[in-house]
């Protein structure tokens, strides 16, 4: 098999994950995109390991370690996202702009007034983030 096929597939998967990390708004979707990027790296490691016929099989061993570290990362990441959601009532990373828990810190700078008009009712439960939602989320 040509080495170019897995290498190109890994590059394209990595860039897909890169787009997801930059463009997504929900923190859990960002975590999914990070998983795609890690998998692209794993595919590269396996392909180059099979090509080089390494006696130590460094590529496959590192792939197993990457998978385990990804599992740890997703556990910690989800715990952090859940803690943030419980404290702020939102997992929208565009609104988490400040370490302080104030209502001003959780509104976007551009659409402070357009927020209620456009996303008011049909939005996910995260839109009117603030103290009112926090009470509901912790209940």
């Amino acid at each position, binding site marked *: *098999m*040509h*080495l*170019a*096929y*897995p*290498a*190109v*597939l890994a*590059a394209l*998967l990595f*860039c*897909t*994950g890169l*787009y*997801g990390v*930059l*463009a*997504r708004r*929900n923190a*859990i979707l960002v*975590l*999914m995109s990070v*998983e*795609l990027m890690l*998998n692209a790296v*794993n*595919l590269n490691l*396996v*392909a180059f*390991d099979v*090509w080089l016929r390494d006696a*130590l*099989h460094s590529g*496959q061993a590192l*792939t*197993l*370690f990457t*998978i*385990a*570290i*990804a*599992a*740890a*990362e*997703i*556990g*910690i990441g*989800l*715990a952090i*996202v*859940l803690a943030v959601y419980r404290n702020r009532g939102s*997992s929208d990373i565009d609104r988490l702009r400040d370490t302080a828990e104030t209502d001003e810190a959780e509104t976007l700078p*551009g659409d402070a007034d357009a927020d209620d008009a456009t*996303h008011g009712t049909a*939005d*996910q*439960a*995260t*839109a009117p983030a603030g103290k009112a939602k926090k009470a509901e989320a912790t209940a």
Partner: protein
Amino acid sequence: MLAATAGHPGFLSPTGVEIAFVLVGIVTLGAAFITVTTRQLVHAALWLVVALGGLAVEYLLLTAEFIAWVQVLIYVGSIVVLLLFGLMLTRAPIGHSPDADSGNRWIALGVAGASAIALVWVVVDAFRTTWIDLDGPAQGSTDATGAFLFRHWVLPFEALSVLLLAALVGAIVLSRKDREDKS
């Protein structure tokens, strides 16, 4: 390295493994695209299953059997389930969500497109004539994996178990609800 000096088969006469690899790769890439672009959050997690399962098939085609099954067990079996739990616990909307993408998605598209073009160009230019020899015994069978993992990689393996324990404790501490300092 092995076959670069010898005449390598061209791209116009693909072997069966290559055809299967490219077809599964197209499915994987399409599922990954849908994962990062769909507006239904739960569908994104389910398309992620397709992408990760496709990658497991690619590992099988590259004769890394053990890693393929580890991929199915850990990624498809536990990580996607964890992500679905996370979506449910943060009350993600089940249906169509209008603002799944943030405002800078065009910048993100530009960055991803530019890096894709650069990476594919460099990779194709570097490995155009490189040939992977897949014949012989499988290099990633469970037998071979156990041998190299517990012969050469024992110490990192044990260190990794300590890291997993630390992650477990950290996740429990982070997600506990009733801490004393909050009252």
